[in-house]
């Protein structure tokens, strides 16, 4: 595939991520913070988000497996996940977190377990999509091109 085609593919892919609600305006803000002095900023922040989220998802799984669930603790973890997903523009993950917090408030175990499944799913979707996007970007850079923003 030639450079122009790759760049076109990237633009289309990014647009679809916004249209499908995987990413929102906040992701655009992050990209605007990237420049020649900080060329890897977006990848760095997103990687941090991945690490943080994986840790939180594990904590959530453990917390919900307890005999007596500590809803305050569950809520604290979801709050963190909601915060970081919102900060990077991972809109669909953020939305599930909002519903998740409501179930925590109601101390509804079934609702929480369902939300955990949903948030894991949305997280893995956005992770895959962002990784594909970064791969495309890398292909373009390796071919000597620049990233269309």
């Amino acid at each position, binding site marked *: 595939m030639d450079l122009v085609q790759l760049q076109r593919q990237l633009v289309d892919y990014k647009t679809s991520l916004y249209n499908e609600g995987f990413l929102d305006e906040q992701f655009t803000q992050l990209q605007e913070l990237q420049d020649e002095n900080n060329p890897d900023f977006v990848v760095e*922040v997103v990687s*941090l988000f991945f690490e943080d989220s994986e840790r939180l998802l594990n904590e959530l799984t453990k917390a919900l497996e307890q005999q007596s669930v500590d809803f305050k603790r569950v809520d604290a973890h979801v709050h*963190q996940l909601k*915060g970081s997903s*919102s*900060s990077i523009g991972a809109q669909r993950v953020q939305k599930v977190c909002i519903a998740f917090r409501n179930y925590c408030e109601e101390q509804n175990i079934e609702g929480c377990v369902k939300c955990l499944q949903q948030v894991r799913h949305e997280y893995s979707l956005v992770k895959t999509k962002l990784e594909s996007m970064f791969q495309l970007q890398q292909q373009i850079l390796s071919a000597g091109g620049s990233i269309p923003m």
Partner: protein
Amino acid sequence: MAAQGRHGGRKSNKMTALVVDDNMVNQTIHHRLLDNLGIENEAVSNGKEAVDIHCSGKTFDLILMDMDMPVMNGIEATRKLREMGIRSMIAGVSTRSMEREVQEFMEAGLDDYQVKPLTVSKLISIIHKING
């Protein structure tokens, strides 16, 4: 913007800021936002660390204070800093948007409040308040 008399002894004219947030992703983003505007900054992870850093003698032109944090939250930390006589600009940055919650945070001693996520334009509007 020249350094004010209360920071006498500081050689640089650069503005300084303290990011207080328990979330690493937010800390990284806020750090970059501030860097981008030429503002020297550091980050701590909760209200107690924010108070401790001031007890050690450091002061900042601007403090970006998250609300929900472990150990000591943003409301308590803001109150404590004001009690200590800290006159820096403190901007609450939180996801809370209910009037009552924001009110309580403001009453603790904030100069400004912005809903997360923080953006370049929100940060600029905070900074204008310092100069204004």
